[in-house]
């Protein structure tokens, strides 16, 4: 990156033409030297302060420091639980580190990537980026419009050079060389037609800088796309039991995270029904118990009254409805219970989602709340139940031998005071336990509750899936910018800016001329200019009649 006030690199005076060659090669390092933010003492006047500050901001050293800070600042975001991805884990952290957690929260460490200090780092970095890219764009445009410099007098001093004799007079020899170089898409500059010395200057490789600028600007584009997605997009979650359906409306969703400029009214009016969910597990061999396949068979309508469609949502295969996508994120078991109250009437009948506690065996925990019979149950569901030494576990994730173990409570569930409760948690503070030890049920069995409080029947097992619905208008632009960034990167690494000069002087013997070809390149990241130069020189030489063996230089 360069300073705004970097020196121009195209001196015109003949006396400096050798300098032109050398400064071309040094340009990369020379201006980097100038722009490295050598710590000059800040000047006294205000405008001078601004200029000093600006130079510091756009210097390479500042960019380096900011890059380090960006990397360093991301580390706590990966080590500490983050609010955005796992709010539950953040709660647990508070519980286990009661004195440390509030301090970390104050520093914004539980939401690092949305924290103001993190934003400050990448904003400064991008400001520095823009402050470097814009002047360089001007300079590129200027360089593209300026013809290549005059050929230096002594080409043999260049890093690559080659000399040969030609039977043609100097101007014809140079013209032939120019034709070849022009055919290779070099930009040319010829000596004046009336001058005594004949030379041609060729330059190529502007794409390198174009690629560099494209890369950096595309990063800015990625940032803008992410911002657009964050402002105008939304994410939502919904848990659906087999057989259930839902319409895409805010109250139906379990979680709804709208972008800042999105409201619930913007949701598309589609609906999805979960017809069936199948999960297959490997049942033998070393990978026994590992899932092999998930398939959520759904039907959906993109708007009320539209023709329904069907789809199989799999983990790497989301459903696209209009510009939304519906993903299969998780799954679990929903054992179905029927509860009758003390009066014998049915107070509850529903397949109740249980949350897996063990992702290998799918032992799951859940709660059944029957406020209208003043009953509550905490349950542990085992898909393939196995009892060893009195403890109940599951030995396989498929529901081959389901069983549920229940603890019953009677009393006030605390649901009448109007405070919303989690459907997965039972507040037993106002309740009494119905029996000392858990009661085990297999499908079809009923537990007659003590003291005539009612009964609970384990009817059967259904499965549930959790779906994620996302809308992100910044997604495609971000991808496009990412691909452009990659393209720019490749260009800037593998294209080299190089100059080739050809000079011809009349041969000492009078007939023909001695032609010298010289070339140099800016720092060549990928190598390979030597070969290119050798090929060019050979091609120029071989195109001319009567040339002698070359003396390849250095």
């Amino acid at each position, binding site marked *: 990156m360069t300073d*705004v*006030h970097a020196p121009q690199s195209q001196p015109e005076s003949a006396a400096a033409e050798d300098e032109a060659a050398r400064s071309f090669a040094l340009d990369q390092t020379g201006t980097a030297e100038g722009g490295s933010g050598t710590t000059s003492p800040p000047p006294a006047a205000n405008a001078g302060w601004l200029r000093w500050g*600006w130079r510091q901001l*756009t210097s390479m050293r500042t960019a380096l420091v900011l890059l380090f800070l960006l990397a360093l600042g991301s580390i706590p975001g990966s080590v500490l639980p983050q609010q955005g991805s796992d709010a539950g884990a953040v709660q647990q952290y508070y519980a286990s580190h009661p004195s440390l957690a509030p301090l970390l929260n104050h520093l914004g460490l539980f*939401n690092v990537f*949305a*924290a*103001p200090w993190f*934003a400050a780092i*990448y*904003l*400064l970095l*991008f*400001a*520095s980026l*823009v*402050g470097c890219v*814009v002047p360089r764009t*001007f300079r590129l445009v200027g360089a593209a419009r300026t013809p290549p410099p005059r050929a230096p007098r002594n080409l043999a001093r260049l890093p690559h050079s080659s000399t040969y004799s030609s039977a043609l007079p100097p101007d014809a020899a140079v013209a032939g060389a120019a034709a070849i170089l022009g055919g290779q898409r070099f930009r040319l500059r010829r000596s004046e037609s009336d001058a005594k010395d004949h030379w041609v200057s060729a330059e190529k490789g502007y794409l390198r800088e174009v690629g560099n600028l494209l890369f950096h600007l595309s990063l*800015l584009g990625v940032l803008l796309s992410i*911002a657009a997605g*964050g*402002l105008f997009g939304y994410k939502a979650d919904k848990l659906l039991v087999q057989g*259930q*359906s839902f*319409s895409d*409306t*805010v*109250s*139906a969703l379990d979680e709804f*995270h*709208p*972008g*800042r400029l999105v*409201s*619930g*009214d913007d*949701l598309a*009016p589609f*609906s999805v029904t979960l017809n069936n969910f199948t999960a297959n597990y490997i049942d033998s061999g070393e990978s026994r118990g590992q899932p092999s396949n998930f398939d959520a068979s759904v039907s959906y309508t993109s708007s*009320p009254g539209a023709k329904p469609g069907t789809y199989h949502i799999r983990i790497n295969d989301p459903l696209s409805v209009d510009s939304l996508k519906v993903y299969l994120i998780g799954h679990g078991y929903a054992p179905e219970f*029927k509860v009758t109250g003390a009066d014998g*009437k*049915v*107070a*509850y*009948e*529903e397949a109740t989602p249980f949350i897996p506690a063990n992702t290998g065996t799918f032992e799951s925990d859940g709660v059944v*709340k029957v*406020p*209208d019979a003043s009953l509550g149950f905490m349950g542990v569901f085992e898909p393939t139940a196995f009892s060893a030494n009195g403890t109940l576990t599951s030995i396989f994730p498929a529901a081959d031998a389901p069983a549920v173990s229940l603890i019953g409570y009677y009393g006030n569930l*605390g*649901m*009448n*005071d*109007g*405070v*919303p*409760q989690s*459907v997965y948690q039972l507040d037993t503070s106002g309740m009494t336990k119905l029996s000392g030890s858990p009661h085990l049920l297999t499908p079809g069995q009923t537990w007659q509750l003590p003291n005539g409080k009612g009964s609970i029947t384990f009817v059967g097992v259904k499965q549930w899936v959790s779906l994620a619905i996302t809308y992100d208008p910044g997604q495609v632009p971000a991808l496009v910018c990412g691909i452009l960034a990659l393209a720019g990167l490749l260009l800037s690494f593998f294209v080299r800016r190089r100059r080739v000069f050809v000079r011809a002087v009349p041969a000492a013997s009078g007939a023909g001329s001695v032609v010298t070809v010289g070339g140099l390149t800016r720092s060549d990241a990928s190598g390979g200019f030597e070969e290119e130069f050798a090929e060019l020189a050979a091609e120029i030489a071989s195109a001319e009649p009567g040339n002698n063996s070359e003396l390849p230089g250095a």
Partner: protein
Amino acid sequence: MFKAKRRTVVTVTAAAAVLLGGALAATLLTSGSSTASATNMVEYQAGQRPLAPNLTGKSLTGTSLNLSSYRGKVVVLNFWGSWCSPCRDEAALFAGLSQQDAPKGVVFLGDDVGDTPANALAFTSSQRITYPSFNDPGYAVVAQISQVVPVHDTPTTVVIDKTGHVVGTIIGAATYSELTTLLRDAAVTQ
């Protein structure tokens, strides 16, 4: 000379735009999203009431329900679920008012969301709610009315006047004063 000055201006402007724009977007994106309005009652003035769509569905007992069949009466439409604590909190109010205001030409309707009929009927039975409710486990009716007025929470109560236009909505557990305010204003039609 001037060229260099102009370049500097452009560059500095661009960088400043990035900084300021970014800071603005960052604050927009990260400040806590408060979608809930300050008041939990939204009311529409007499000339600006949106027309409620014709909500149709089956009731909890299997009969057909149809909002337009109640044209000519004021309708209080309450979105509830048996799993919902605030719904239990307001249930007594609705049970009482529905009996009291029936002779005045006010009809109470419910929309039971995210429930099974068994659970819902246990609720209505224990809370002594006698008016019918849509059986809406998939929020289809909610989606229908959301096209006109936002129903983003459970419970939500929507009051519709005799011509089928929405007078107002109450978000969260309804209070007596809110309901009676809307009912009184429902009587004022154009």
